[in-house]
């Protein structure tokens, strides 16, 4: 950009499948994990992020750039987050929440967690099992007992016969 104001510091991030990404330091330090590395002087070369794959890291960097371009306006940031997550499937959301946790990015962590929670609301047990890949390991007797213990939580919930 404007050369006379000095080039903004750029960091190079490396995913666990050896993809390299350039990102402005000002955006990357939304991650407390990365910020700590920068502050400790470890950011001179390439920052290896061993728990994040390239596809997820690309998405996280899109988020970092998008959210840091918005001035301090919580409403606008929230609507950006909503839009950013709106087209993500469960698989991607699961990768994102793991990455956000590893990178220590509370705003992304909270937004993805809230998004996953939101789709669970009022859904039947069978639906959540199917969508989340949860194997029902209860015996029929055990499941009936757990259901009985928590039966008050089933009011107003979608029902399905597919347990």
């Amino acid at each position, binding site marked *: 950009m404007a050369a006379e104001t000095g080039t903004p510091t750029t960091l190079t991030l490396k995913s666990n499948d050896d993809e390299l990404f350039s990102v402005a330091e000002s955006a990357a330090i939304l991650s407390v994990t990365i910020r700590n590395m920068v502050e400790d002087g470890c950011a001179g070369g390439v920052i290896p992020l061993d728990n994040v794959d390239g596809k997820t890291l690309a998405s996280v960097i899109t988020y970092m750039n998008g959210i840091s371009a918005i001035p301090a306006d919580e409403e606008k940031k929230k609507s950006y987050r909503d839009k950013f997550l709106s087209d993500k499937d*469960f*698989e991607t*959301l*699961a*990768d994102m*929440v*793991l990455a956000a*946790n590893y990178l220590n990015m509370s705003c992304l*962590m*909270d937004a993805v*967690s*809230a998004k*996953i*929670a*939101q789709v*669970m*609301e*009022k859904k039947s*047990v069978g639906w*959540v*099992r199917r*969508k*989340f*890949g*949860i*194997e*029902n*390991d*209860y015996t029929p007797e*055990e*499941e009936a007992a*757990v*259901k009985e*213990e*928590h039966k*008050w*939580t*089933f009011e107003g*919930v979608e029902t399905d016969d597919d347990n």
Partner: protein
Amino acid sequence: FDNDRINRLPDDILVAILSFLSPIEAERTSVLSSRWINLWKHTSSLKRYNEYTLLVDEVTQWLEYASAKKVPILELNFSPKFDESLSYPGLTCAFPHEFLARSISVDFKPLKALTLEYIDVDGGAIEFFLRNCPLLEELIVHESKELSIVEVCGSSLVLKRLEICYCRNLKLVRVSAPNLVSLTVQSLEELLIENVPMLVELSLPWGFGEISGENLCNAISCCNLQLEVLNLSVLKNPEVS
């Protein structure tokens, strides 16, 4: 399953996700599988959930929870001091009056002690609890803006302790409760004591307004013989003294 990515998340992340559900929704996940049976217990639902819903829904949720769990003691305190991130107009939380009207399935019979603080209950809600909680021995209401007339009257009441304080629009508290032992109200003007043969402790902690010996004697004339403890907290006017 070809896609079990969510289920493969570590427990602490699943708990973080469940923290964004209401307490009821979070508890229901215990039925998913044996791994999920206790995850919901680690959530801090109340804190996180606040950011994503209205507080009045939360009062409803806790009332539903208390009813379903048949709790004997229910204390709801929505004081802003408890969570500084909360901000709502007037610093009290609305009471879901429609909840009491619609809920034929609501069961507060086992309730023995009820405390409502910073929640705008009105006299009708108080009457609802007195009518539907035959075991209620203790009732405490603080900081309700909607409370103006309270009638705690009934020959079958087992109520032993009643405390109604810091309700700025309070006009009248009428008390006729045969088992009442302890009564705390914010000031004398509002108090109308009728049948309280067991009352031994009367507290007037909010000494706004003037209390003369005469109107005190009048107010408590029906119970002054058996009173053992009288707590008065009076703001003294230095010019008069």
